[in-house]
Every structure is written in C-alpha cells, then in structure tokens.
C-alpha cells in the first residue's frame, strides 16, 4: 500500500462512513467487486479475524517489507504471513494460552524473560499503535504510509532499541514478538495460514512433512536432496 494508493482501508473507511457518505458507497461498490475479481488477489475466504483496519495495514506493510518479492519468493502478503499472524493472534496463543498471568508485575531483568501483563494479542495491538504514533511524530504518517527507506529506518530503530515508546511499552519485547511471528508465518506448516505454497520451505530446500530418510542418509550425503516439499494438508 503506497502513500498515493487508494487501498482497501480507504475504501472501507469511506464505505462505512454513513450519512452523507452513503451516496459515495453506491459508486464504491463496483470498485470493490472489481478488486475481488482481480486474478492476483488472495483467496476470497481470507479476511481478518483479529486485526482491525489499521493493524492489518501495518502488518501487511511489515511483512511485505521484511519479505519483499524477488526471484526467491513472492512477497510476505502473497505467502500469507499476514494471515498467519492474524490467526495466531486470534487463537489460543494470542489469548495467552500457557502464559502465567498472575501478578504482582515487575519489569525484572532480561534474564527473567517475558514479564508483561499482556497477552500476545494485547502486546501486538499496543505495539502497533505505539509504532504508528512514533511514525506519525517522526514522519507525519503511519507506518504503512511510509516509503521503503523510512520503513527500513523504523524497523532498524525497533530492532536496535533506538526507538522507544512514550507509554512505557518495551520496544525490545514488541520487536522480538513481531519478528518471531513473521518467521513463524514464513516457515510453519501452511495449515496455519502462512508459508503459502510452501514458499518458505522452497526457499531453503526443506522437504516438509514427509521425512523417511533412512536410505537417504547415505544416498544424499553431501549431495543436494531434491525436495518438493509436502505439507500436512498434502498428506491428509
């Protein structure tokens, strides 16, 4: 989504504005159907379960910046990393399954690990808002409206701790969480919504689910293994 572009969020914001904007809705509908029929569009069943419009735009921009299209893989949204993240946040993990959530709460020291009174979904939500606030302050617009160079600057700031959030949310914890989820979306089984067409596995030559290598250990010792990766769905 570029600064100049008129993306889904803009359309939806217009569409739901109501009242005086109702007339505009009528003209906007054909545009939406046209968009849905574009062959490059992801499968229709997608949609977001957790991310709101701003968060979805942030995540889409994030994963397309971290995983850009080139001869090695399609871009992050085409691999479904954004969908993986949405489903993970909407699901049990995002809601804090297996997370000890009793106080009292203290910041602690890094060797004591995660100590925030937030589920992963709450952390994501607060972190996106805080990052966008930083972007607005620094560049006058939110993350997904930044150009490539500015996005790079923001990610470097988050990953090195050069950016800090005014509201006390620890940048380091937010960054390690978003980084880990982007990697999960790229390399976990496609059944979770990411790694579409096993693009992450194809990138590195990981064979996926089928793994009976008893004969292969010797046969392919120091030789490339011709992997056409298989996923759980392929084997079910």
């Amino acid at each position, binding site marked *: 989504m570029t600064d100049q572009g008129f993306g889904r969020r803009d359309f939806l914001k217009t569409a739901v504005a109501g009242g005086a904007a109702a007339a505009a809705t009528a003209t906007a509908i054909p545009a939406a159907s046209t968009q849905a029929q574009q062959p490059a569009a992801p499968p229709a069943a997608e949609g977001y379960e957790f991310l709101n419009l701003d968060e979805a735009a942030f995540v889409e921009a994030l994963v397309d*910046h*971290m*995983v*850009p299209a*080139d001869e*090695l*893989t399609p871009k992050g949204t085409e691999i479904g990393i954004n969908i993986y993240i949405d489903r993970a946040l909407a699901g049990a993990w995002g809601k*804090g*399954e*297996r*997370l*000890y*959530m*009793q106080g009292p709460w*203290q910041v*602690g*020291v890094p*060797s*004591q*690990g*995660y100590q925030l009174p937030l589920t992963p979904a709450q952390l994501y939500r607060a972190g996106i808002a805080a990052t966008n606030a930083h972007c607005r302050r620094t560049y006058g617009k939110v993350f997904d409206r930044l150009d490539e160079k500015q996005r*790079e600057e923001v*990610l470097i700031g988050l*990953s090195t701790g050069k950016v800090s959030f005014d509201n006390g949310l620890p940048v380091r914890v937010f960054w390690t969480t978003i*980084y880990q989820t*982007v*990697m*999960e979306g790229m*390399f*976990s*089984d496609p*059944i*979770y919504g990411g790694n579409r067409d096993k693009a*992450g*596995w194809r*990138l*590195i*030559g*990981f*064979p*996926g*689910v*089928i*793994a*009976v*290598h*008893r004969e*292969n*250990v*010797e046969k*392919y*010792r*120091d030789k*490339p*293994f011709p992997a056409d990766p*298989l*996923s*759980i769905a392929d*084997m*079910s």
Partner: protein
Amino acid sequence: MATKLKEVDAVIVGLGWTGGILAKELTEAGLKVVALERGAMRSPEKDFAVPIVRDELRFVVRHDLMQNTARDTLTIRNNPSQDALPMRRLGSFLPGEVVGGSAVHWSGHTWRWTDMEFKVRSMYEERYGKNFIPADMTVQDWGITYAELEPYYDKFECTAAVSGKAGNINGEILPGGNPFEAPRAREYPLPPLTPILASEMFTQAAKNNGYHPFPRPAANASRAYTNPDGSKFGACQYCGYCQRFGCEANAKGSPLTTVIPIAMRNPNFELRTYSWVTKVLKASDGKRVSGVAYTNLLNGEEFEQPAGVVLLCAYAINNVHLMLLSGIGEPYDPVAQKGVIGKNYCYQTGAGATLFFEGRHFNPFMSAGGSNATIDDFNINWDFDRGQHGFVGGYNVAGGFNTALPIGYRPVPRGTPQWGKAWKAATAKWYQTAMNISASGSVMANRYNYYDLDPTYRNAFGQPLMRMTFDYKENEHKIGQHAAQVINDIAKSMNPTRLNEATVRTRWTVVPYQSTHNTGGTIMGANPRDSALNKYLQSWDCHNLFVVGANVFPHNASYNPTGPVGALAYWTADAVKNRYLKDPGPLVPA
C-alpha cells in the same frame, strides 16, 4: 473435603521413565500399584502419526507436550539479592506433561556417568589438594559407585534400545568407541547410528587435532529391535523431528512404548491420568508417609490415596517442589548452610560455533536425535589436567544435527541483515551448507544455587511456586572459555568459508532453550546432614518415601542425565523389591 481411598501397596507420582520402570518392576513383584499422572494419555499410533506429528509450530514453538506454565511454573532469579519473578512461559528447559513425561520428547542421548562424578570431591581433593575446590562449591560424593551401577546402566540401555559403540569392555579399549568410558560388561544392544556428513567431518577434524571422536550413544534404534521385555522397536528413519516430538517409527526409547504398556497389562497396576498430586502426607509417627493428596483435574475433586510406599517420579523440579510443599526434610538455607531440601540445584553450560561451507550439502533435515560424533577428551578423561586451568568438571564437544527445523534453525553468518532480500538470499544459501560444533559443560554445585518456596507467587492450586536461584559461577566461566577455545580451534582447522565463533555463556537466562537437564534439590548422599536421600534414593526422614529422578544428583555433569536416571530407577526398584519390602525401615543407618 478430600475423599479417602483404599490403601494400595505403592503409589507412584508421575509416570515417565522412572515411574514407568518402577510401575513395571513393582507390579511384577506382586505389589498393587497406583500411578498418578497430571498429564493425559497419548497414544503413539494416533498422536505421533504422520502427518500431524510433523508440526514444528505445534510441538516445538507452542510446547504441545510440555508443562503448562499457566497452571504451575516456578519463579526465577540469578542471585538471592534479586526479586524472583515467574517464568511466565517455558524457555530454557521443557518439562513434559503427558504419560511418558519428558521421555516422550527427549532425543535419546544416553550416557554412563562415572566415578569422576560419583566421587567428585574425593578424587579432586586427592589429586589437587583440599584447597582446589572453592569454599562456595558445595560438591560432594554421591555415596554410590560406578561398579554398583554398571548392571543397571546395562539394563536401562537394553530397555531403551541404545545404539552405540563400546570403547571399553571389561578394561579392554576398543577401536571406534569412547576410550575414556568406564568399563562396560558388554557391547551396546544396537550398533551405532549411520553417520551424517556433519558428524563425519567433525570426526575427521577431531582426529586431526589429536582427539578421540566416537558416535554418540542414543536411544534411537539403529535397526529394528526387540528389547528383553519383548517391547518392539522400529528402525530410526532419521526423520529430523526428534527432540520435542513423539516418535512415529517407535524407534525412540520411550517408556510409552516399553515399560508403561507392560505395567498397564498387569492387573496389579492402575493409572489415573489428570491427577495432580498436591502433597505427600506424613504419618503420625513422623518416620513414615501415609500417602498422597491429589486433585482430579477433570472435576476438581480432591482425594487422599493412602499407600505403603510412596515413590516420587515426577520431573526433577516437581519432585523437589512436592518435598518442599509437604514439609518433609529440612529446607535448605544458603546463609546458615543448613538443611537439605532444595540444596545443590545445578544446570548445564555450553558453547557453540556455526561453520559455513560453500558447496557442501549437510541436509540438516536428515538426522536422528543422536546424530553426532562426540569427544570426551575434556570430560571424563582424568588424564586431562584441570590443575592448570583451575576448574572442576568438564565438557563434551559434538558435531552433528538434532531437529534442525526451519522456524528455529536458519543459520546465517554473523552480520547478515535480519530481513529483506539480503536476509532471504543468505538464508537460502546457508541453510544446507552450515553445520554446528557445540559443547555441553558441567555445572558444579554452589552454595547460592538452590530452590526454595516463593513468598509471593502461587500456582492454580493456591500453593507457593518453587523459587529457583541460579547463575553460572567462575568455575563454569572457565569451563566455557576452555570449551569455546577448543571448539574454535577445531572449527578453524576445518577451513570453513565463514565461521560464527563459539562464545562463552556468562549469565543464565530463562530464554532461549538450553537444556532440560535440571538436577539436584533432593540429593543422594552418605549421611542425612548433607543429603536428603540415601544411596537407594530413600528419604532419610521417612523410610517409605523414595524420590527418583535427576533431582537426586548432587551436581550436574556435562552429559545428558537420562542414563543414570534410568539406571537409578532400576537400582531403586531392586532395593525396594529385594530389601525394603522384606524388612521395611531405613536401608542405610543414619
């Protein structure tokens, strides 16, 4: 109000390797045994089948087979001056929480710990003098010898289908094996696993550097096998999904496919899953325990299970926790250096290098749990003179792979960007062209590394969490430095295209994963002043209570702990069957 149930001969708390071994042995000896397991039953043929078991996100990242920290965890700190905070999710170590316990998801590395551990204080003092061991290093002899344990090691290796190559049979040093190992009575039950490229390259480099590499012994059946109890194993498929997964091929030595099903077929045995033991109950005479209290996790109902003998066989940390919650034995106090329960908690240290070789093909997804070659030249080699290096203990070094799956394993040279086109290109280039050399180092007991009950945080049953106070001390730093140097020298001699050199661990942190090798807390020993248990793992305080697991180790070696854990379970089973039942009372005079 708890419902009091009918007394049984023995109750086992936790059904993993140790509980499974004791359940089988004691029911075969005619005892009525009940096992209480907090986790659920998993069936290998249904739960570990392809394709569902081949799921890194579920089993590795989301900890499907592991303890649920929302319900019970521990608090952690590096030293007594800090406030301990809850380990809010798992990280550094991963206790299992299913029938079979951590033995469902282990990799199978099976070692024989030697007298260099069991006689640690006397051997070092004899060779280096009394001042060599620092005053705050609370290492002590274990009260047991390798010779006593040898037949039980053998029994465990045969049960668990350990593949390996003997290096020392009755004192004769054999080519291809570990020349430093203590004498074995006979060969491993199965030949070693097929080497992979990384282990072959490490083997050659280690030899070139004058070391003595050998294939790591592992409970991964190198071919189809039937153990002495009649349990059948398939051949390992080198599937690359070993650590943290159940085994689809039935090739991993697991109690879930060996001792537990045998006990389950015995009418003397009853397993109650979803049963959370909250306390061991003391008898009115104070010299015995009367049974245990537990909660049925399916409906919250509380029970009291009276038993003639109580065997704590939960994960090492949880055994200690139960002892502290039950008020059995005097809790350890690091200031006064009095008490024993919680004393000598130990972990392991380590160092690792990543070597990048343009043009080679390591295929890291093809490996068994034990696919590596190892050297013990700086570990159980007593000829290695620690005097000039000033440390007690040692480390083993290995080259190979174990469960190199892509969410967690994507090696790139240091300095590579973390995202973008350059990151992708490097990830693609190096995934199959990199290998690791890593060391696992011992941790000697220290006065200030210990467990007690946390004053603030509680579990889902309203009980205090256990508090772990732990950090690496100077001894571990020296071991780590030595190990990093040896690793880097071997690595450089292999002339890699790029090298991420090994560095030293300084402070223990709760993330990332390091090893599920937590030891100590209810240690065995020669007298009740220094230890919680005698050499038969019998409580000095209550003679019908036995506590089995790595929690009995007075310190931690560089080796994985399951070999002596399994051997000691058989050793304790024999002591209970053949001695205790005939004449119940202390097996060693206090």
